[in-house]
């Protein structure tokens, strides 16, 4: 407590420094006057008395100093003094200050912006209570990897586990909402009743689902998302208890989730759901069937349970399920992953590469400012020589210079903060969906602290070298020479700086170049189909059709297809359900007829299952390689047929001819289907699909040949159409056609296949754009840097150059001399940069595709571009040097 009171006294002195000085002054004056008085009384004359008083008192100035310094604020006063001086110096050269602050603002701003993204996406804990206890659970299948699980298995997980306080299943769903203005499609999640409590999301209105509502036959209940409640119902509390008609069933609104409630996992994109319903009450077939996998789960581990314990526990659950249900669960596993890891899995490598890149930009900015300071400090050599001669210590001079550079950096940081807050908002708005947790990206105290820290670090970093150099002036030489340098060694630091920043720029440009090559490669790579001029949408059918008997459904689908085909400008139409490239997966297990049936489902192979119409190949422009595709004759009355892709043929038939062979799909079809054709492979998982993607084999069937029970729930078939001209213009015409077909049919999810492709590249594009911006920034800064140094050195050598010209040197020689000097620096920088890049780009292989990390084309292109840019930057000062008028240069001093 004593030290606190002492600190309080010291602080109060600090705030009353002026008062302190006058008080001390008065006190000492009184003392001196009283002593003088006394001496006069002793018989001295006033003058002698004063002298005597002063002698007895001692050195007034130094004693005042000591009294002040007792309070321990000397450093602070010096700092204030240094700052004042620094401000004055910076104000005296506004051009220099502006360039330096702007350079730093760019560097620090870029870092702040990216850090705020990294902080929001990777570092911030998820907005759930004790979020480290929350994990996701998924099934693991031999030969496939991680995938969805069956709901019935999930119920067994709940029953058999010992390490989770709560488990909740979820799956994504869509509904057709009617009775609330225009019919619309809502995105939904089917969840367990435990879902919201597990994620610590208390409803802002109403309540969570009850366990009765999470049972088959339970009362249909719906929870609105906060965002949907706001946009659709204007945040009205009256919505509670009201019915919401989803796919023809009335669901009672029981609650509203918080608006900031956030839950998504990588496979779903970063889209938020509009409404939530209970999964347990779902009449949907897959939920009742152990063969059907459709859900994933989140779990909250018990207090004190480690991830390893939870994993071991779920391993034993998986083993007992495997024993109980060998057909579906033998040798399968359960994958437990921390939720945060799942959410950021896809963007983490991008962000880390970007963070490294942006760090390089700041380094280059620092080197540039250091160069500026160095050039300036040579001009200030006299000033510091004088100060040193007058007794300033070296440390004092360094401190003074560092104060100046830190002041610059802090000003740059403040401006950078503005740039960052504006830039982050702009970038996230321009590229929606590129990042998960985009809402969590903001300038919070941690980001501000980061900015302050890097500003200070940058200030010291770029200030130190010039300060050290300046503070060791050759006193004698500088004062005598009048501040004009001559020896070559003095430019060594500048030269090293130029080399370093050229090298940094090379690394950045190569990184950006590789990313751009990756993306361009992906863009021109064929996904196996032609996405241009393809329009995709879904149709919400009224319950009167969706719930009708199978033959009515078949007839309706055929009619609908004809209606859409009749729209002018539509050259081909196809129904599409099940798997859809870059959008939706659906798989089915099978085995070859005539081969022994595998002992259980788990050991059967599976393939992607596309249910499409006869014109699908025409719409998507997928090549037919052999045999025929599905035709209109392949309907419920004819033999079941299917078409496979080249990978399927290769993998399961090898050199045999698959056509005419038959496949068993016993989960769905009682009769085997005959293979009638082979088509080209489609990249289901994105343009960057690699050969280790889980399901490679693909097959196509006609939805009209589906067994009756599979046609029961057909509320929302999808379509793709090939259009003449831009597909964007077709939404209206298609909508009209639908209305003509049935007044209650609604158009959903209209989008072009091009935009589906673009969306699949969103994260990559985000990374590429930012990397390109950073690299451009680096290029500009590095060119300014080399330009600055070469013109500075040329300027310093004007005297020498003038002399050379006067002695008869050719002007072209002078040009070559200066240019050569710059070129040597640039080349050295490029060489070092290439070497560094060769080592560093290996770290970004995860975000590259189809291009090697040491791609010779990128490396050589960057080397050439940067050398050329550097030469241009050097050419300007070289020309100026060439035109030096020897008379002016020699007379100058």
């Amino acid at each position, binding site marked *: 407590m004593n030290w606190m009171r*002492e600190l309080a006294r010291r602080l109060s002195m600090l705030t009353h420094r002026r008062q302190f000085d006058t008080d001390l002054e008065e*006190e*000492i004056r*009184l*003392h001196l006057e009283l002593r003088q008085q006394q001496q006069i009384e002793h018989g001295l004359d006033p003058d002698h008395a004063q002298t005597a008083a002063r002698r007895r008192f*001692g050195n*007034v100035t130094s004693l005042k100093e000591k009294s002040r310094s*007792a309070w321990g604020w000397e450093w602070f006063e010096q700092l204030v003094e240094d700052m004042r001086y620094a401000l004055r110096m910076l104000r005296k050269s506004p051009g220099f200050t502006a360039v330096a602050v702007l350079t730093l603002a760019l560097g620090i701003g870029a870092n702040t912006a990216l850090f705020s993204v990294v902080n929001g996406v990777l570092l911030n804990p998820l907005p759930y209570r004790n979020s480290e206890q929350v994990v996701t659970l998924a099934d693991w299948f031999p030969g496939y990897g991680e995938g969805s699980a069956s709901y019935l298995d999930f119920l067994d997980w709940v029953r058999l586990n010992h390490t989770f306080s709560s488990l909740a299943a979820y799956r994504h769903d869509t509904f057709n909402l009617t009775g609330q203005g225009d019919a619309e499609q809502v995105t939904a999640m089917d969840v367990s009743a435990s879902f919201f409590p597990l994620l610590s999301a208390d409803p802002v209105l109403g309540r969570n689902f009850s366990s009765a509502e999470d049972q088959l036959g339970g009362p249909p209940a719906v929870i609105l998302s906060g965002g949907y409640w706001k946009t659709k119902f204007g945040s009205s509390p009256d919505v509670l208890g009201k019915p919401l008609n989803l796919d023809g069933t009335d669901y009672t609104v029981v609650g509203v989730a918080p608006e900031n409630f956030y839950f998504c996992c990588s496979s779903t994109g970063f889209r938020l759901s509009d409404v939530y319903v209970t999964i347990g009450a779902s009449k949907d077939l897959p939920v009742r069937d152990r063969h059907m996998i459709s859900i994933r789960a989140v779990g909250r581990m018990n207090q004190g349970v480690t991830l390893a314990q939870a994993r071991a526990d779920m391993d034993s659950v998986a083993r007992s399920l495997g024993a109980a249900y060998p057909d579906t669960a033998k040798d399968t596993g359960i994958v437990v992953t921390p939720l945060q890891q799942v959410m950021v899995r896809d963007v983490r490598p991008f962000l880390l590469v970007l963070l490294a890149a942006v760090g390089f930009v700041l380094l280059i900015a620092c080197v540039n400012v250091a160069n500026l300071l160095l050039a300036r400090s040579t001009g200030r050599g006299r000033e510091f020589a004088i100060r040193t001669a007058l007794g300033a210590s070296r440390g004092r001079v360094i401190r003074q210079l560092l104060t100046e550079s830190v002041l610059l950096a802090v000003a740059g940081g403040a401006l950078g903060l503005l740039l960052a807050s504006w830039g982050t908002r702009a970038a996230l708005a321009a590229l929606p969906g590129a990042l998960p947790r985009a809402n969590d990206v903001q300038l919070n105290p941690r980001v501000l602290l980061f900015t302050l820290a890097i500003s200070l670090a940058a200030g010291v970093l770029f200030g130190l070298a010039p300060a050290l150099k300046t503070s060791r002036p050759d006193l004698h030489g500088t004062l005598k020479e009048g501040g004009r340098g001559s020896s070559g060694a003095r430019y060594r630091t500048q030269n090293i700086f130029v080399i370093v920043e050229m090298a940094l720029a090379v690394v950045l440009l190569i990184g950006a170049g590789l990313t751009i090559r990756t993306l361009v490669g992906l863009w021109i790579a064929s996904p196996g189909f032609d996405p241009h001029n393809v329009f995709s949408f879904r149709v919400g059918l009224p319950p009167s059709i969706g719930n009708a008997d199978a033959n009515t459904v078949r007839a309706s689908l055929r009619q609908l297809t004809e209606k859409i085909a009749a729209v002018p400008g539509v050259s081909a139409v196809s129904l599409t359900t099940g798997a859809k490239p870059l959008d939706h997966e659906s798989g089915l297990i099978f085995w070859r007829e005539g081969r022994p049936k595998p002992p259980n489902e788990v050991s059967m192979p599976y393939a992607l299952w596309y249910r499409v119409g006869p014109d699908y190949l025409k719409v998507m422009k997928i090549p037919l390689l052999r045999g025929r595709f599905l035709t209109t004759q392949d309907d419920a009355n004819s033999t079941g047929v299917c078409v496979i892709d080249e990978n399927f043929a290769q993998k399961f038939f090898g050199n045999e001819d698959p056509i005419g062979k038959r496949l068993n799909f016993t989960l769905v079809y009682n009769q085997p289907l005959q293979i009638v054709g082979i088509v080209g492979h489609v990249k289901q998982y994105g343009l960057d699909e690699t050969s280790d993607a889980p399901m490679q084999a693909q097959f196509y069937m006609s939805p009209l040949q589906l067994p009756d029970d599979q046609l029961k729930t057909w509320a929302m078939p999808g379509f793709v159409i090939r259009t003449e001209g831009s597909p964007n213009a077709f939404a209206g015409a298609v909508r009209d056609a639908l209305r003509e077909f049935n007044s209650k049919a609604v158009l959903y999810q209209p989008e072009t296949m091009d935009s589906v492709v673009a969306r699949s590249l969103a994260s990559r594009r985000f990374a590429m754009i930012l990397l390109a911006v950073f690299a451009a920034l680096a290029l500009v800064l590095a060119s300014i840097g080399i330009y600055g140094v070469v013109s500075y050195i040329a300027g310093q050598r004007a005297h020498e150059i003038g002399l050379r010209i006067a002695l008869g040197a050719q002007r072209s020689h002078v040009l070559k001399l200066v240019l050569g000097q710059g070129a040597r620096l640039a080349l050295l920088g490029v060489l070092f940069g290439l070497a560094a890049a060769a080592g560093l780009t290996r770290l970004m292989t995860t975000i590259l595709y189809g291009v090697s990390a040491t791609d010779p084309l990128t490396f050589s292109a960057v080397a050439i571009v940067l050398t050329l840019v550097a030469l241009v930057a050097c050419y300007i000062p070289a020309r100026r040097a060439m035109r030096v008028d020897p008379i002016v240069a020699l007379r100058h001093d």
Partner: protein
Amino acid sequence: MHRDEIPPGTLYLLILKTLARSGELHGYEIANSIQQISDDVLQVEEGSLYPALQRMLIKGWVTAAWGTTAGNRRARYYQLTAAGRKQLTVELSQFQRVIGAVTRVVEAV
């Protein structure tokens, strides 16, 4: 007249003791008081009182307040605090221990 420099480290003790004896004093009075009581033997470099007083203010041994002298002039008066009194006993016992030891060494035959 020859005056001795005060032994190092005893300035606090002298000021504390002087204030303990006389209550409120200003700087000049403290200097005079030390001199007079020591029969002019102890000569404080008068100015050095002031840094010492500042340090004692920081430590909280004394407080200062502006008042008026007999000659009707503004002066800063120093007064001992409870902490100052405690410090005085500490300094005093320390001083006596040192002096005792020095005396024994000097008088040993």
